[in-house]
């Protein structure tokens, strides 16, 4: 078994550690387009941190940087004191065993059933007897309310059910850090409420650290302890979600209150509308 991340405030190298993830001065560009230019974020241990921002600001890219799926051009990304951009593949895999990630679309393995999907990381990383694996899987499925669906295949699940199974799978190895990428996107109100409650319950009951990437402002405000709003490759605001609604920043207020126009323009840059219609050209 791998050693768990140090507890909240516990010293791992002799000094108190309060932040599980520390991102400092991160620059990242792809295809000549700058995504981040000097990004600084800290994720406190044991809390739910929301990463928000308009579409295309690089929220999912940030998660991929944090988990070492891509490497920054410059800067440091420390997860429990380890710089993920400098880890070897085997070190990165060791670190990832202590992380769980819920993908936007669930990303369940489509050729195996729900039970096997949840059992997948256990079978890959442990030598537990079948009876123990069975009990762990059923416990995780019970937690997300889908114990009865153990024999279904991913193609037989609704979007919300698929995401709940993916959450059960992400929790299977009892990680210390759970990362959610747009967990509420495209869900009906009932499924959304269920997932929202699960995120909160899971974090509080298991003492995890959770990072939720979302632009569902109202939903995330009810569970997050701290929020970061990204725009143009930087953090433009951070703090308690409710406090951000009263921010002085025009951009933050536009985002938090869902205003159609403001610093973030509704229209993609285009030539003059009237001229383009009359010219007959593309």
């Amino acid at each position, binding site marked *: 078994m791998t050693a768990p991340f140090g507890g909240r405030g516990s010293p791992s190298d002799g000094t108190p550690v309060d932040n599980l993830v520390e991102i400092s001065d991160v620059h990242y560009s792809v295809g000549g387009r700058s995504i981040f230019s000097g990004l600084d974020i800290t994720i406190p241990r044991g809390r739910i941190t929301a990463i928000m921002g308009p579409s295309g600001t690089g929220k999912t890219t940030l998660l991929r940087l944090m988990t070492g799926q891509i490497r920054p051009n410059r800067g440091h990304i420390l997860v429990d004191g380890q710089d993920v951009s400098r880890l070897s593949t085997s070190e990165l895999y060791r670190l990832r*065993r202590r992380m769980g990630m819920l993908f936007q*679309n669930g990303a369940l393995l489509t050729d195996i059933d729900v039970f096997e999907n949840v059992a997948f*990381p256990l079978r890959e990383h442990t030598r537990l007897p079948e009876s123990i694996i069975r009990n762990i899987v059923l416990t995780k499925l019970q937690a997300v309310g889908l114990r009865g669906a153990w024999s279904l295949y991913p193609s037989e699940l609704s979007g919300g059910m698929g995401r709940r199974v993916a959450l059960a799978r992400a929790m299977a190895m009892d990680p210390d850090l759970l990362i959610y990428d747009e967990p509420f996107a495209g869900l009906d109100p009932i499924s959304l409420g269920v997932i929202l409650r699960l995120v909160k319950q899971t974090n509080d009951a298991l003492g995890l650290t959770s990072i939720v990437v979302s632009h569902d402002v109202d939903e995330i405000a009810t569970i997050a302890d701290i929020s970061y709003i990204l725009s143009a490759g930087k953090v433009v605001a951070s703090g308690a979600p409710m406090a951000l609604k009263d921010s002085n920043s025009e951009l933050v207020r536009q985002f938090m209150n869902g205003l159609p126009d403001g610093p973030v323009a509704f229209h993609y840059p285009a030539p003059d509308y009237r001229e383009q219609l009359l010219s007959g050209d593309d």
Partner: protein
Amino acid sequence: MRLVDDLLTSLKNFVSSVGALSIFFVRVLGQVPAALLKPRYVIAQIHNAGALSLVIIMTCGLFVGAVLGLQGYDLLQRFGSEDSLGTAAALGLIKELGPVITALLFAGRAGTALASEIGLMRATDQLSAMEMMAVDPIRRVVAPRFIGGVIAMPLLSAIFISIGIYGVHLVGVQQLGVDPGSFWSQMIASVETGDINEGILKSCVFGVACSLIAVHEGYTAQPTAEGVGRATTRTVVISAVLTLILDFMLTAVML
């Protein structure tokens, strides 16, 4: 000048592609021992690549053999040596047609299935999810499929050749009246172990080539519907061309 630039760019891209494929091949080979430790995944892939290709392989083998019987008989009877039909057909099937046509059919049936399956896993984040669960997709997804293809190809080729010889017999002996004793005895007397080894070696090489191309194209596919479609097409085209080039090279070396 523009033509030279284009040629240089194409050459650079080609060398880069060959390099990427070689690195990928080494990565897959590195994970083969670990994949073999979980044989149920490999067995499942032998079933997918092999057993599920049986119908097409057997059907094509029968008709290729039947055509070979017709053409061979027509040719040999001009020299009064139609009794040699068994030998001619067996050597043609064992040394050339069996391995080559099996490889082409494999690329069209199993190769496209492998490429599209892995490509779709990429497009639906299943491979990323595995990486996030600290599971190497090369070990868990690619290597078992590669091994399955490499094992299935010689077996399919042997079945193709057997059914093909039966097709030759069906047409040559049962329809056109070649003496069955001469058909079998000449075949047994003329086909040597070296001929069979040549066929086995070719089918093994084609198995490695076609399986590698299929898993590589799937693994590196763009994660879109168009990307997966393109990977599937490239699998068939590259596998077919590579099979024929390798066939020429192997034949030239072994003759």
